[in-house]
Protein backbone atom coordinates (compact mmCIF):
# COMPACT_ATOMS: atom_id res chain seq x y z
CA UNK A 1 0.00 0.00 0.00
CA UNK A 2 1.19 3.44 -0.82
CA UNK A 3 1.23 5.71 2.21
CA UNK A 4 0.22 9.20 1.12
CA UNK A 5 -0.26 12.55 2.75
CA UNK A 6 -3.85 11.83 3.67
CA UNK A 7 -2.86 8.86 5.84
CA UNK A 8 -0.51 11.01 7.88
CA UNK A 9 -3.14 13.71 8.18
CA UNK A 10 -5.77 11.26 9.38
CA UNK A 11 -3.40 9.96 12.06
CA UNK A 12 -2.54 13.46 13.13
CA UNK A 13 -6.21 14.50 13.27
CA UNK A 14 -6.97 11.39 15.34
CA UNK A 15 -4.15 12.20 17.75
CA UNK A 16 -5.44 15.76 18.05
CA UNK A 17 -8.97 14.55 18.76
CA UNK A 18 -7.65 12.06 21.29
CA UNK A 19 -5.72 14.81 23.06
CA UNK A 20 -8.74 17.10 23.09
CA UNK A 21 -10.91 14.30 24.44
CA UNK A 22 -8.35 13.75 27.19
CA UNK A 23 -8.27 17.41 28.13
CA UNK A 24 -12.05 17.52 28.32
CA UNK A 25 -12.76 14.27 30.15
CA UNK A 26 -9.76 13.65 32.40
CA UNK A 27 -9.73 15.04 35.91
CA UNK A 28 -6.10 14.68 36.93
CA UNK A 29 -3.92 17.67 36.06
CA UNK A 30 -0.92 15.54 35.09
CA UNK A 31 -3.01 13.54 32.64
CA UNK A 32 -4.40 16.80 31.31
CA UNK A 33 -0.85 17.97 30.62
CA UNK A 34 -0.08 14.76 28.76
CA UNK A 35 -3.17 15.25 26.63
CA UNK A 36 -2.09 18.83 25.88
CA UNK A 37 1.28 17.50 24.75
CA UNK A 38 -0.49 15.00 22.52
CA UNK A 39 -2.37 17.86 20.84
CA UNK A 40 0.87 19.77 20.21
CA UNK A 41 2.58 16.65 18.87
CA UNK A 42 -0.27 15.89 16.50
CA UNK A 43 0.42 19.31 14.96
CA UNK A 44 4.10 18.33 14.77
CA UNK A 45 3.20 15.19 12.84
CA UNK A 46 1.09 17.22 10.43
CA UNK A 47 3.93 19.70 9.95
CA UNK A 48 6.52 17.03 9.25
CA UNK A 49 4.32 15.23 6.74
CA UNK A 50 3.38 18.47 5.00
CA UNK A 51 7.05 19.34 4.89
CA UNK A 52 7.79 16.02 3.21
CA UNK A 53 5.02 16.36 0.64
CA UNK A 54 5.51 20.10 0.00
CA UNK A 55 9.19 19.48 -0.67
CA UNK A 56 10.54 22.18 1.57
CA UNK A 57 12.08 22.11 5.03
CA UNK A 58 10.18 24.97 6.70
CA UNK A 59 7.85 22.57 8.46
CA UNK A 60 10.68 20.47 9.87
CA UNK A 61 12.38 23.59 11.23
CA UNK A 62 9.14 24.61 12.88
CA UNK A 63 8.88 21.24 14.59
CA UNK A 64 12.22 21.75 16.30
CA UNK A 65 11.06 25.03 17.76
CA UNK A 66 7.72 23.59 18.80
CA UNK A 67 9.34 20.69 20.69
CA UNK A 68 11.42 23.21 22.64
CA UNK A 69 8.43 25.43 23.37
CA UNK A 70 6.39 22.41 24.49
CA UNK A 71 9.11 21.48 26.97
CA UNK A 72 9.10 25.01 28.37
CA UNK A 73 5.33 24.89 28.62
CA UNK A 74 5.41 21.69 30.64
CA UNK A 75 8.04 23.17 32.96
CA UNK A 76 5.76 26.13 33.68
CA UNK A 77 2.74 23.88 34.04
CA UNK A 78 4.43 21.57 36.53
CA UNK A 79 5.58 24.58 38.55
CA UNK A 80 1.97 25.72 38.70
CA UNK A 81 0.86 22.28 39.92
CA UNK A 82 3.49 22.42 42.66
CA UNK A 83 2.31 25.89 43.68
CA UNK A 84 -1.27 24.66 43.83
CA UNK A 85 -0.37 21.46 45.65
CA UNK A 86 1.44 23.33 48.40
CA UNK A 87 -1.67 25.33 49.17
CA UNK A 88 -4.39 22.81 48.46
CA UNK A 89 -2.85 19.28 48.57
CA UNK A 90 -4.61 18.32 45.38
CA UNK A 91 -3.93 17.90 41.68
CA UNK A 92 -7.50 17.43 40.51
CA UNK A 93 -9.51 19.85 38.46
CA UNK A 94 -12.70 19.38 40.51
CA UNK A 95 -10.95 21.12 43.36
CA UNK A 96 -10.27 24.27 41.37
CA UNK A 97 -13.46 25.91 42.54
CA UNK A 98 -12.58 28.61 45.03
CA UNK A 99 -13.58 31.38 42.64
CA UNK A 100 -17.13 31.40 41.41
CA UNK A 101 -19.71 33.99 40.65
Amino acid at each position, binding site marked *: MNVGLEHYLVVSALLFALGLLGVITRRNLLV*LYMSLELMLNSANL*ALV*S*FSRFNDNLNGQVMVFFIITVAAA*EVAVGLA*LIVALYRK*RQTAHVED*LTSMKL
Partner: protein
Amino acid sequence: MNVSYLELLKLAAPETIVVLTALAALVVDLTSTRDLEARFRFIINGMIACAGCVAAIVWMLVMPAHANALEGMFVVDPLTQVVKIALLGLTLFTVLISMDSTFTEHIGEYLALILLAAVGMMFLVSAEDILMIFISLELTSLSLYILAAFNKRDVNSAEAALKYFLFGGMAAAFTLFGLSLLYGLSGATNLGQIAAALEDKGLDPLLIVAMVMIVLGFGFKVAAVPFHLWAPDAYQGAPTPSAAFIASGSKVASFFIFAKVMMIGFTGGETNGVHEIAGSAAWQQFVSGWTPVVAVVAVLSMLLGNLVAIVQSSVKRLIAYSAIAHAGYMLIGVMAHSGEAVASLVYYAVTYGLTTIGAFGVVAVVEARSKDDQLASFAGLSRRAPVVSLCMMIFMLSLAGIPPLAGFFGKFYVFAAALKTGAPNLGLLWLVILAIAMSAVSFYYYLQVLKQIYVADMPAGAEELRVPVLGQVVLGLIAVGVILLGCAPNLLVGVLQASIKAAGL
Protein backbone atom coordinates in the same frame (compact mmCIF):
# COMPACT_ATOMS: atom_id res chain seq x y z
CA MET B 1 19.39 33.95 2.34
CA ASN B 2 22.26 36.04 3.61
CA VAL B 3 21.72 37.92 6.82
CA SER B 4 24.05 40.34 8.43
CA TYR B 5 23.71 39.67 12.13
CA LEU B 6 24.81 43.21 12.92
CA GLU B 7 21.92 44.57 10.84
CA LEU B 8 19.51 42.19 12.52
CA LEU B 9 20.72 43.23 15.94
CA LYS B 10 20.24 46.86 15.00
CA LEU B 11 16.68 46.18 13.85
CA ALA B 12 15.90 44.26 17.01
CA ALA B 13 17.65 46.78 19.26
CA PRO B 14 14.52 47.79 21.22
CA GLU B 15 13.79 44.14 22.03
CA THR B 16 17.44 43.58 22.93
CA ILE B 17 17.40 46.57 25.26
CA VAL B 18 14.32 45.24 27.05
CA VAL B 19 15.84 41.74 27.42
CA LEU B 20 19.05 43.21 28.83
CA THR B 21 17.00 45.32 31.25
CA ALA B 22 15.16 42.23 32.40
CA LEU B 23 18.48 40.52 33.11
CA ALA B 24 19.80 43.66 34.81
CA ALA B 25 16.79 43.85 37.13
CA LEU B 26 17.27 40.17 37.96
CA VAL B 27 20.99 40.51 38.71
CA VAL B 28 20.71 43.75 40.67
CA ASP B 29 17.96 42.30 42.82
CA LEU B 30 19.90 39.10 43.48
CA THR B 31 23.23 40.76 44.25
CA SER B 32 22.86 44.25 45.68
CA THR B 33 19.36 45.03 46.87
CA ARG B 34 18.54 41.66 48.43
CA ASP B 35 18.89 42.87 52.03
CA LEU B 36 16.99 46.11 51.63
CA GLU B 37 13.40 46.62 52.64
CA ALA B 38 10.91 45.30 50.06
CA ARG B 39 9.58 48.74 49.22
CA PHE B 40 13.01 50.11 48.35
CA ARG B 41 13.84 47.00 46.35
CA PHE B 42 10.69 47.50 44.32
CA ILE B 43 11.47 51.16 43.73
CA ILE B 44 15.12 50.62 42.73
CA ASN B 45 14.46 47.67 40.41
CA GLY B 46 11.25 49.20 39.11
CA MET B 47 13.24 52.27 38.12
CA ILE B 48 15.71 50.05 36.25
CA ALA B 49 12.81 48.41 34.41
CA CYS B 50 11.27 51.78 33.59
CA ALA B 51 14.62 53.10 32.36
CA GLY B 52 14.89 50.12 30.00
CA CYS B 53 11.41 50.71 28.59
CA VAL B 54 12.14 54.42 28.12
CA ALA B 55 15.47 53.64 26.45
CA ALA B 56 13.75 51.28 24.00
CA ILE B 57 11.05 53.86 23.25
CA VAL B 58 13.68 56.57 22.69
CA TRP B 59 15.63 54.25 20.40
CA MET B 60 12.57 53.68 18.22
CA LEU B 61 11.77 57.40 18.11
CA VAL B 62 15.32 58.36 17.17
CA MET B 63 16.02 55.52 14.74
CA PRO B 64 12.90 54.90 12.68
CA ALA B 65 13.49 51.81 10.56
CA HIS B 66 11.70 50.14 7.71
CA ALA B 67 12.89 46.63 6.94
CA ASN B 68 11.75 43.08 6.43
CA ALA B 69 14.34 40.66 7.76
CA LEU B 70 14.44 36.93 6.91
CA GLU B 71 11.35 36.92 4.70
CA GLY B 72 8.86 38.25 7.19
CA MET B 73 10.32 36.67 10.32
CA PHE B 74 10.93 40.14 11.68
CA VAL B 75 9.21 43.10 10.09
CA VAL B 76 9.98 46.60 11.27
CA ASP B 77 7.92 49.42 9.80
CA PRO B 78 6.38 52.63 11.18
CA LEU B 79 3.15 50.84 12.16
CA THR B 80 4.82 48.08 14.18
CA GLN B 81 7.02 50.71 15.81
CA VAL B 82 4.00 52.74 16.93
CA VAL B 83 2.38 49.63 18.39
CA LYS B 84 5.63 48.64 20.11
CA ILE B 85 5.99 52.09 21.64
CA ALA B 86 2.42 51.84 22.93
CA LEU B 87 3.16 48.37 24.36
CA LEU B 88 6.26 49.65 26.13
CA GLY B 89 4.20 52.53 27.52
CA LEU B 90 1.67 50.05 28.93
CA THR B 91 4.52 47.97 30.38
CA LEU B 92 5.92 51.09 32.01
CA PHE B 93 2.61 51.90 33.68
CA THR B 94 2.20 48.28 34.80
CA VAL B 95 5.61 48.44 36.50
CA LEU B 96 4.70 51.77 38.09
CA ILE B 97 1.38 50.58 39.54
CA SER B 98 3.02 47.44 40.94
CA MET B 99 5.65 49.36 42.91
CA ASP B 100 3.33 49.78 45.87
CA SER B 101 2.43 46.09 46.11
CA THR B 102 3.55 43.64 48.75
CA PHE B 103 2.45 40.30 47.33
CA THR B 104 5.92 38.92 46.62
CA GLU B 105 9.50 38.94 47.83
CA HIS B 106 10.81 37.89 44.42
CA ILE B 107 10.86 41.37 43.02
CA GLY B 108 13.65 40.92 40.45
CA GLU B 109 11.97 37.84 38.99
CA TYR B 110 8.61 39.56 38.88
CA LEU B 111 9.93 42.57 36.95
CA ALA B 112 12.03 40.38 34.67
CA LEU B 113 8.96 38.34 33.74
CA ILE B 114 6.94 41.48 32.98
CA LEU B 115 9.73 42.66 30.69
CA LEU B 116 10.07 39.25 29.01
CA ALA B 117 6.34 39.17 28.37
CA ALA B 118 6.73 42.63 26.84
CA VAL B 119 9.51 41.32 24.58
CA GLY B 120 7.22 38.49 23.48
CA MET B 121 4.53 41.02 22.61
CA MET B 122 7.00 43.17 20.68
CA PHE B 123 8.16 40.20 18.60
CA LEU B 124 4.54 39.20 18.08
CA VAL B 125 3.77 42.61 16.65
CA SER B 126 6.73 42.32 14.25
CA ALA B 127 6.03 38.77 13.10
CA GLU B 128 4.71 37.99 9.65
CA ASP B 129 5.71 34.36 9.70
CA ILE B 130 3.69 31.62 11.35
CA LEU B 131 6.74 30.22 13.17
CA MET B 132 7.56 33.59 14.74
CA ILE B 133 3.90 34.21 15.53
CA PHE B 134 3.65 30.92 17.43
CA ILE B 135 6.92 31.35 19.31
CA SER B 136 6.28 34.92 20.40
CA LEU B 137 2.72 34.03 21.39
CA GLU B 138 4.14 31.29 23.61
CA LEU B 139 6.84 33.56 25.08
CA THR B 140 4.14 36.05 26.03
CA SER B 141 1.74 33.44 27.37
CA LEU B 142 4.30 31.48 29.41
CA SER B 143 5.49 34.68 31.11
CA LEU B 144 1.91 35.74 31.80
CA TYR B 145 0.99 32.32 33.31
CA ILE B 146 3.79 32.72 35.84
CA LEU B 147 2.87 36.35 36.54
CA ALA B 148 -0.70 35.22 37.29
CA ALA B 149 0.61 32.69 39.82
CA PHE B 150 2.98 35.13 41.49
CA ASN B 151 1.16 35.57 44.77
CA LYS B 152 2.31 32.38 46.46
CA ARG B 153 0.50 33.20 49.70
CA ASP B 154 -2.88 33.24 47.99
CA VAL B 155 -4.59 30.01 46.92
CA ASN B 156 -6.61 31.85 44.31
CA SER B 157 -3.50 33.00 42.50
CA ALA B 158 -2.29 29.46 41.73
CA GLU B 159 -5.80 28.42 40.78
CA ALA B 160 -6.20 31.41 38.46
CA ALA B 161 -2.87 30.65 36.81
CA LEU B 162 -3.75 26.97 36.34
CA LYS B 163 -7.04 27.79 34.66
CA TYR B 164 -5.30 30.35 32.48
CA PHE B 165 -2.62 27.76 31.66
CA LEU B 166 -5.03 24.95 30.80
CA PHE B 167 -7.17 27.08 28.52
CA GLY B 168 -4.08 28.74 27.11
CA GLY B 169 -2.36 25.44 26.37
CA MET B 170 -5.43 24.16 24.59
CA ALA B 171 -5.77 27.37 22.57
CA ALA B 172 -2.07 27.18 21.65
CA ALA B 173 -2.56 23.62 20.39
CA PHE B 174 -5.55 24.72 18.30
CA THR B 175 -3.63 27.67 16.85
CA LEU B 176 -0.68 25.45 16.05
CA PHE B 177 -2.80 22.82 14.33
CA GLY B 178 -4.52 25.54 12.33
CA LEU B 179 -1.18 27.05 11.36
CA SER B 180 0.20 23.66 10.35
CA LEU B 181 -2.78 23.09 8.04
CA LEU B 182 -2.19 26.55 6.61
CA TYR B 183 1.42 25.62 5.94
CA GLY B 184 0.31 22.39 4.33
CA LEU B 185 -2.14 24.14 2.03
CA SER B 186 0.28 26.80 0.88
CA GLY B 187 3.74 25.30 1.35
CA ALA B 188 4.94 28.53 2.90
CA THR B 189 5.29 29.95 6.40
CA ASN B 190 5.27 33.60 5.41
CA LEU B 191 1.84 35.27 5.58
CA GLY B 192 2.26 37.08 2.28
CA GLN B 193 3.30 33.90 0.46
CA ILE B 194 0.45 32.01 2.10
CA ALA B 195 -2.01 34.59 0.82
CA ALA B 196 -0.51 34.36 -2.68
CA ALA B 197 -0.75 30.56 -2.66
CA LEU B 198 -4.36 30.62 -1.48
CA GLU B 199 -5.38 33.34 -3.92
CA ASP B 200 -7.12 31.17 -6.51
CA LYS B 201 -8.01 28.15 -4.40
CA GLY B 202 -11.21 29.51 -2.90
CA LEU B 203 -12.63 28.02 0.27
CA ASP B 204 -11.01 24.60 0.60
CA PRO B 205 -12.61 22.47 3.37
CA LEU B 206 -9.20 22.08 4.98
CA LEU B 207 -8.79 25.85 4.86
CA ILE B 208 -12.07 26.27 6.72
CA VAL B 209 -10.80 23.98 9.48
CA ALA B 210 -7.53 25.93 9.65
CA MET B 211 -9.39 29.22 9.76
CA VAL B 212 -11.74 28.21 12.54
CA MET B 213 -8.87 26.81 14.61
CA ILE B 214 -6.86 30.01 14.23
CA VAL B 215 -9.85 32.19 15.13
CA LEU B 216 -10.36 29.96 18.17
CA GLY B 217 -6.74 30.38 19.27
CA PHE B 218 -6.75 34.15 18.91
CA GLY B 219 -10.24 34.32 20.40
CA PHE B 220 -8.78 32.82 23.54
CA LYS B 221 -5.96 35.38 23.64
CA VAL B 222 -8.36 38.30 23.37
CA ALA B 223 -10.89 36.67 25.75
CA ALA B 224 -13.85 36.54 23.38
CA VAL B 225 -16.91 34.35 24.01
CA PRO B 226 -17.00 31.28 23.85
CA PHE B 227 -13.27 31.12 24.68
CA HIS B 228 -13.51 33.54 27.61
CA LEU B 229 -13.96 31.14 30.53
CA TRP B 230 -10.47 31.73 31.90
CA ALA B 231 -10.70 35.52 31.99
CA PRO B 232 -12.88 36.23 35.05
CA ASP B 233 -11.01 33.73 37.22
CA ALA B 234 -7.58 34.80 36.01
CA TYR B 235 -8.34 38.49 36.54
CA GLN B 236 -9.79 37.89 39.97
CA GLY B 237 -7.18 35.49 41.31
CA ALA B 238 -4.02 36.94 39.80
CA PRO B 239 -2.14 39.70 41.62
CA THR B 240 -3.73 42.96 40.49
CA PRO B 241 -0.76 44.39 38.52
CA SER B 242 -0.38 41.06 36.67
CA ALA B 243 -4.07 41.11 35.84
CA ALA B 244 -3.65 44.67 34.56
CA PHE B 245 -0.88 43.52 32.24
CA ILE B 246 -2.85 40.52 31.01
CA ALA B 247 -5.79 42.80 30.31
CA SER B 248 -3.83 45.54 28.56
CA GLY B 249 -0.53 44.68 26.89
CA SER B 250 -1.41 41.13 25.90
CA LYS B 251 -4.71 42.34 24.44
CA VAL B 252 -3.15 45.07 22.33
CA ALA B 253 -0.53 42.70 20.87
CA SER B 254 -3.04 39.88 20.29
CA PHE B 255 -5.57 42.10 18.56
CA PHE B 256 -2.89 43.57 16.35
CA ILE B 257 -1.57 40.18 15.23
CA PHE B 258 -5.12 38.81 14.89
CA ALA B 259 -6.00 41.63 12.50
CA LYS B 260 -2.71 41.22 10.67
CA VAL B 261 -3.03 37.45 10.16
CA MET B 262 -6.60 37.83 8.95
CA MET B 263 -5.87 40.78 6.69
CA ILE B 264 -2.63 39.56 5.14
CA GLY B 265 -3.07 35.79 5.23
CA PHE B 266 -6.80 35.32 4.70
CA THR B 267 -8.05 37.59 1.97
CA GLY B 268 -8.17 35.48 -1.16
CA GLY B 269 -9.23 36.54 -4.64
CA GLU B 270 -12.02 39.06 -5.08
CA THR B 271 -15.39 38.33 -6.67
CA ASN B 272 -18.13 40.97 -6.77
CA GLY B 273 -16.21 43.16 -4.33
CA VAL B 274 -16.13 40.43 -1.68
CA HIS B 275 -12.90 38.68 -0.76
CA GLU B 276 -13.42 34.96 -1.23
CA ILE B 277 -11.76 33.77 1.97
CA ALA B 278 -12.81 36.74 4.07
CA GLY B 279 -16.47 36.44 3.09
CA SER B 280 -18.93 38.99 4.30
CA ALA B 281 -21.03 39.50 7.41
CA ALA B 282 -23.24 42.17 5.88
CA TRP B 283 -26.92 41.99 6.82
CA GLN B 284 -28.86 39.55 4.59
CA GLN B 285 -25.85 39.14 2.30
CA PHE B 286 -23.75 36.70 4.25
CA VAL B 287 -20.95 35.15 2.26
CA SER B 288 -19.12 32.34 3.98
CA GLY B 289 -15.57 33.10 5.06
CA TRP B 290 -13.91 34.16 8.27
CA THR B 291 -15.80 37.42 8.82
CA PRO B 292 -19.13 35.71 9.61
CA VAL B 293 -17.28 33.48 12.11
CA VAL B 294 -15.75 36.51 13.80
CA ALA B 295 -19.14 38.26 13.67
CA VAL B 296 -20.72 35.44 15.68
CA VAL B 297 -17.92 35.62 18.25
CA ALA B 298 -18.26 39.41 18.47
CA VAL B 299 -22.02 39.28 19.00
CA LEU B 300 -21.74 36.62 21.70
CA SER B 301 -18.94 38.55 23.46
CA MET B 302 -20.89 41.79 23.52
CA LEU B 303 -24.06 40.11 24.80
CA LEU B 304 -22.55 37.83 27.41
CA GLY B 305 -19.84 40.22 28.61
CA ASN B 306 -22.20 43.08 29.27
CA LEU B 307 -25.07 41.07 30.71
CA VAL B 308 -22.98 38.97 33.11
CA ALA B 309 -20.96 41.98 34.27
CA ILE B 310 -24.16 43.43 35.74
CA VAL B 311 -24.42 40.82 38.49
CA GLN B 312 -20.78 40.83 39.61
CA SER B 313 -19.86 41.85 43.13
CA SER B 314 -16.08 41.62 42.74
CA VAL B 315 -14.72 44.66 40.91
CA LYS B 316 -11.92 42.68 39.24
CA ARG B 317 -14.47 40.19 37.89
CA LEU B 318 -16.62 43.08 36.75
CA ILE B 319 -13.67 44.51 34.81
CA ALA B 320 -13.03 41.03 33.40
CA TYR B 321 -16.56 40.71 32.01
CA SER B 322 -16.38 44.25 30.70
CA ALA B 323 -13.09 43.25 29.03
CA ILE B 324 -14.97 40.45 27.26
CA ALA B 325 -17.54 42.98 26.07
CA HIS B 326 -14.79 45.32 24.86
CA ALA B 327 -13.20 42.42 22.97
CA GLY B 328 -16.55 42.14 21.17
CA TYR B 329 -16.43 45.80 20.11
CA MET B 330 -12.82 45.46 18.98
CA LEU B 331 -13.66 42.36 16.92
CA ILE B 332 -15.92 44.59 14.83
CA GLY B 333 -12.74 46.47 13.95
CA VAL B 334 -11.02 43.20 12.96
CA MET B 335 -13.99 42.27 10.81
CA ALA B 336 -13.93 45.54 8.91
CA HIS B 337 -10.41 44.58 7.68
CA SER B 338 -9.37 47.84 6.03
CA GLY B 339 -6.43 50.15 6.72
CA GLU B 340 -8.79 52.57 8.45
CA ALA B 341 -10.12 49.72 10.59
CA VAL B 342 -6.61 48.75 11.72
CA ALA B 343 -5.96 52.35 12.79
CA SER B 344 -9.23 52.39 14.74
CA LEU B 345 -8.52 48.99 16.25
CA VAL B 346 -5.06 49.98 17.48
CA TYR B 347 -6.41 53.27 18.85
CA TYR B 348 -9.20 51.44 20.67
CA ALA B 349 -6.93 48.71 22.04
CA VAL B 350 -4.26 51.14 23.26
CA THR B 351 -6.65 53.55 24.97
CA TYR B 352 -8.60 50.62 26.42
CA GLY B 353 -5.37 49.11 27.75
CA LEU B 354 -4.36 52.41 29.34
CA THR B 355 -7.76 52.85 30.99
CA THR B 356 -7.79 49.27 32.28
CA ILE B 357 -4.34 49.62 33.83
CA GLY B 358 -5.62 52.73 35.59
CA ALA B 359 -8.75 50.96 36.84
CA PHE B 360 -6.68 48.02 38.11
CA GLY B 361 -4.32 50.54 39.75
CA VAL B 362 -7.23 51.95 41.74
CA VAL B 363 -8.42 48.43 42.63
CA ALA B 364 -4.87 47.66 43.84
CA VAL B 365 -4.94 50.73 46.11
CA VAL B 366 -8.26 49.75 47.66
CA GLU B 367 -7.31 46.07 47.87
CA ALA B 368 -4.08 46.86 49.72
CA ARG B 369 -6.09 48.39 52.57
CA SER B 370 -9.31 46.43 52.70
CA LYS B 371 -7.93 43.00 51.65
CA ASP B 372 -10.59 42.35 49.04
CA ASP B 373 -11.96 43.82 45.85
CA GLN B 374 -15.67 43.57 46.62
CA LEU B 375 -17.87 46.46 45.51
CA ALA B 376 -18.70 47.11 49.17
CA SER B 377 -15.03 47.88 49.88
CA PHE B 378 -15.32 50.87 47.57
CA ALA B 379 -18.17 52.41 49.59
CA GLY B 380 -17.52 56.06 50.36
CA LEU B 381 -14.12 56.00 48.71
CA SER B 382 -14.57 59.58 47.48
CA ARG B 383 -14.31 60.83 51.05
CA ARG B 384 -11.44 58.56 51.98
CA ALA B 385 -9.26 59.12 48.92
CA PRO B 386 -10.57 61.92 46.72
CA VAL B 387 -7.81 61.93 44.09
CA VAL B 388 -7.95 58.19 43.49
CA SER B 389 -11.74 58.34 43.30
CA LEU B 390 -11.62 61.08 40.70
CA CYS B 391 -9.22 58.94 38.62
CA MET B 392 -11.56 55.94 38.94
CA MET B 393 -14.45 58.09 37.75
CA ILE B 394 -12.49 59.07 34.65
CA PHE B 395 -11.54 55.43 33.93
CA MET B 396 -15.05 54.08 34.41
CA LEU B 397 -16.65 56.82 32.28
CA SER B 398 -14.04 56.27 29.58
CA LEU B 399 -14.73 52.51 29.56
CA ALA B 400 -18.44 53.29 29.30
CA GLY B 401 -17.69 55.55 26.33
CA ILE B 402 -18.61 59.04 27.53
CA PRO B 403 -17.26 61.95 25.48
CA PRO B 404 -14.77 63.63 25.69
CA LEU B 405 -12.81 60.66 27.09
CA ALA B 406 -10.69 58.29 25.02
CA GLY B 407 -13.19 55.42 25.29
CA PHE B 408 -15.81 57.42 23.41
CA PHE B 409 -13.61 58.28 20.48
CA GLY B 410 -12.31 54.71 20.30
CA LYS B 411 -15.84 53.30 19.93
CA PHE B 412 -16.84 56.04 17.52
CA TYR B 413 -13.81 55.42 15.31
CA VAL B 414 -14.21 51.61 15.23
CA PHE B 415 -17.92 51.89 14.39
CA ALA B 416 -17.26 54.51 11.73
CA ALA B 417 -14.57 52.32 10.14
CA ALA B 418 -16.95 49.33 10.17
CA LEU B 419 -19.71 51.34 8.49
CA LYS B 420 -17.30 52.63 5.87
CA THR B 421 -16.24 49.07 4.99
CA GLY B 422 -19.84 47.98 4.53
CA ALA B 423 -20.59 51.05 2.37
CA PRO B 424 -22.57 51.88 0.28
CA ASN B 425 -25.32 49.72 1.79
CA LEU B 426 -24.02 49.86 5.38
CA GLY B 427 -23.83 46.07 5.68
CA LEU B 428 -22.31 46.06 9.16
CA LEU B 429 -24.88 48.50 10.54
CA TRP B 430 -26.66 45.72 12.44
CA LEU B 431 -23.51 44.98 14.42
CA VAL B 432 -22.91 48.64 15.19
CA ILE B 433 -26.48 49.06 16.41
CA LEU B 434 -26.11 46.04 18.66
CA ALA B 435 -22.77 47.36 19.97
CA ILE B 436 -24.26 50.75 20.80
CA ALA B 437 -27.24 49.16 22.54
CA MET B 438 -24.91 46.96 24.59
CA SER B 439 -22.73 49.92 25.54
CA ALA B 440 -25.87 51.49 26.97
CA VAL B 441 -26.24 48.38 29.11
CA SER B 442 -22.62 48.71 30.22
CA PHE B 443 -23.39 52.13 31.75
CA TYR B 444 -25.34 50.38 34.44
CA TYR B 445 -22.45 48.43 35.91
CA TYR B 446 -19.83 51.14 35.46
CA LEU B 447 -22.12 53.59 37.26
CA GLN B 448 -22.71 50.94 39.92
CA VAL B 449 -19.01 51.22 40.83
CA LEU B 450 -19.17 55.02 40.81
CA LYS B 451 -22.33 54.93 42.94
CA GLN B 452 -20.46 52.96 45.59
CA ILE B 453 -17.58 55.42 45.48
CA TYR B 454 -19.51 58.68 45.45
CA VAL B 455 -22.97 58.03 46.87
CA ALA B 456 -22.78 55.12 49.30
CA ASP B 457 -21.99 55.85 52.94
CA MET B 458 -18.57 55.17 54.35
CA PRO B 459 -18.45 52.06 56.49
CA ALA B 460 -18.42 52.99 60.17
CA GLY B 461 -14.93 53.50 61.55
CA ALA B 462 -13.31 53.90 58.14
CA GLU B 463 -10.52 56.39 58.06
CA GLU B 464 -8.75 58.23 55.31
CA LEU B 465 -6.90 55.97 52.89
CA ARG B 466 -3.23 56.82 52.78
CA VAL B 467 -2.18 56.45 49.19
CA PRO B 468 1.54 56.79 48.42
CA VAL B 469 2.43 59.91 46.44
CA LEU B 470 3.96 57.86 43.63
CA GLY B 471 0.74 55.89 43.24
CA GLN B 472 -1.36 59.04 43.06
CA VAL B 473 0.98 60.61 40.51
CA VAL B 474 0.90 57.50 38.29
CA LEU B 475 -2.90 57.21 38.41
CA GLY B 476 -3.18 60.94 37.74
CA LEU B 477 -0.87 60.61 34.74
CA ILE B 478 -2.93 57.76 33.29
CA ALA B 479 -6.13 59.77 33.84
CA VAL B 480 -4.60 62.80 32.09
CA GLY B 481 -3.56 60.51 29.23
CA VAL B 482 -7.12 59.19 28.90
CA ILE B 483 -8.55 62.72 28.81
CA LEU B 484 -5.88 63.99 26.43
CA LEU B 485 -6.28 61.12 23.95
CA GLY B 486 -10.04 61.64 24.08
CA CYS B 487 -9.95 65.41 23.56
CA ALA B 488 -7.22 65.33 20.93
CA PRO B 489 -7.50 61.88 19.33
CA ASN B 490 -5.50 63.12 16.38
CA LEU B 491 -2.36 62.86 18.51
CA LEU B 492 -2.51 59.10 18.07
CA VAL B 493 -4.81 58.70 15.08
CA GLY B 494 -2.70 60.97 12.89
CA VAL B 495 0.42 58.97 13.63
CA LEU B 496 -1.44 55.69 13.07
CA GLN B 497 -2.88 56.71 9.72
CA ALA B 498 0.47 57.98 8.48
CA SER B 499 2.24 54.81 9.58
CA ILE B 500 -0.40 52.52 8.06
CA LYS B 501 0.03 54.33 4.79
CA ALA B 502 3.81 53.93 5.09
CA ALA B 503 3.47 50.24 5.97
CA GLY B 504 1.16 49.75 2.99
CA LEU B 505 -1.58 47.77 4.77
